[in-house]
């Protein structure tokens, strides 16, 4: 589905990604973990074309995309939801979703219908006419997911969608993401909630010091000494301190 080779990215003197290589097969749900500042969100932005890598190749469904504009990448079936939620604050909830659907719909009316269906899926029925900026953070994250779904992605990147959800909401979100996979959407999920990741993912990639340091089953990666040292250890330490 997607193959990433030799991605490097520096911001000025700061090297965030040094040499990132991995690939994801169609139908997989892959987790992406790593300590704060490891460059996970940066990697997503590169995949979506929002920022350019300094070097490296990205092949999506057999086609090189690293030089494409974001809207072209989205058209070809790859988009993401953002860690820092991005909704169109001046629009109503349904209009937000509708904008995503305009990519394929032939009319605003059709896009609206698709938008309503997507809102129902993410659990935002009843809020359609509310102003997007009036929604709680969790609902704005759901709305961004609905908008992304409306563009009909085949590969969806999800950046910390479960932050701030309670246990029941996490379960509902996991179910939703699994149902997306059942429909044929491949997922890469950035998530700090390890328990949720264990339940959701077929495979986990661990990113640290600019490259993928470990990958495999969730259990395998969580036992990997390098991962424990760089990431999980830090998390345990934080858990102990709090």
């Amino acid at each position, binding site marked *: 589905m997607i193959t990433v080779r030799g991605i490097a990215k520096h911001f000025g003197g700061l090297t965030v990604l040094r040499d990132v290589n991995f690939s994801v097969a169609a139908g997989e749900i892959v987790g992406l973990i790593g300590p704060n500042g490891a460059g996970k969100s940066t990697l997503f932005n590169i995949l*979506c*074309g*929002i920022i350019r890598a300094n070097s490296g190749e990205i092949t999506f469904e057999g086609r090189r995309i690293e030089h494409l*504009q*974001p*809207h072209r990448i*989205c*058209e070809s079936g790859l*988009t*993401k939801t*953002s860690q820092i939620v*991005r*909704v*169109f*604050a*001046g*629009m109503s909830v349904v*209009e937000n979703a*509708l*904008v*995503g659907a*305009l*990519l394929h719909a032939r*009319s*605003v009316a059709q*896009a609206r219908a698709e938008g309503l269906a997507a809102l129902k899926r993410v659990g935002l029925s009843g809020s359609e006419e509310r102003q997007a900026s009036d929604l709680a953070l969790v609902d704005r994250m759901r709305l*961004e997911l609905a*908008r*992304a779904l*409306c*563009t009909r992605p085949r590969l969806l990147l999800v950046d910390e969608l479960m932050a701030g959800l309670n246990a029941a909401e996490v379960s509902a979100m996991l179910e939703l993401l699994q149902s997306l996979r059942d429909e044929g959407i491949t997922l890469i999920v950035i998530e700090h909630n390890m328990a949720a990741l264990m339940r959701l993912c077929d495979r986990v990639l661990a990113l640290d010091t600019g490259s993928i340091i470990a990958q495999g089953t969730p259990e395998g990666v969580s036992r990997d000494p390098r991962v424990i040292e760089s990431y999980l250890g830090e998390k345990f330490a934080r858990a102990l301190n709090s």
Partner: protein
Amino acid sequence: MRTEAPWGRRTLLAIGALALLCVPLLHLSDYTMRVATMTCVYVVAAAGWTLIGGYANQITLGQATMFGIGAYVSTMLFVHFHVSPWIGGPLGAMAAALAAAVIGLLVFRLWGAYFALVTLALAEMVRILVEYAQPITGGPQGISVPFVRNSLWLLQFPEAKDYYEIAALLVILALALARAVQSSPLGYRLRAIRDDEVAAKLAGINVFRTKMIAFMLGAVLTALAGTLYAQITGFVDPDSVLSITLSVQLALYAIIGGAQVWWGPLAGAALLVPLGQAMTGSGSGAGAGLAKIVYGLLLVAIVVIQPLGIAGFVKSLQRRKRAAPSEAIAP
């Protein structure tokens, strides 16, 4: 709002359009009709600004370039080649769209962060070019449109008020277009860009192309207003049709009226053009100075109280009215 019967809203709009066309039946003074006619011209020009400046919040301070191109192209064709403004106007609009394409290519691709400043600088460049091209443009002195005869084909009438019906028709066309854009896919894409450009890209919107289309469409409207202006005043010079003052005025009409909705330029120009005319009419001295201060304070007051202009006032009133019943049952 969507629950309202759509024909009800349409009927209301049709009545409004008809009322606009019927203003001459009121037998207002020549002066008032002249002001009404000029107001129509500026409504159309500001509507052109709204498409890009309001809908997409890409604040251009060079819209006078489009107005000037419309005015100069039709006037030069008329003076040098006796081409009717009915042909010169659309040609001017095409020239303005072309200019918008070139300017858009520069600002949307290269210098997006400085959009307002770059459009202002480019507009000044156009003005200087026109002043240098004296043999064909008349240079800083401008060109007069010689009065040939009273003729619809030549778009020439003895008095400004005689242009009213045509100006009102152009207003109706321009606002119909602005309204259609607002509820079209293009309108939604522009709003998305206004709210969050990165999110718009992630939703698959071609941000560059969307801005270009709106900028060029707006250029066409403003240029047509420029042609009409030249015919009404019978005189075109860089100061009146290519100045920074005009660019700022057009932006102001749209912003004060509410640049995010199609009728904002109508509300803004209908308020500010007559006020401005009254001020220039009030001569010099303390009275005129006071009038200008009041005008300035009014602008500041509107923008401070309601940044979304008159349309913003109306919207918040509507929202309050809708919210009222639920407030009544709240403890």
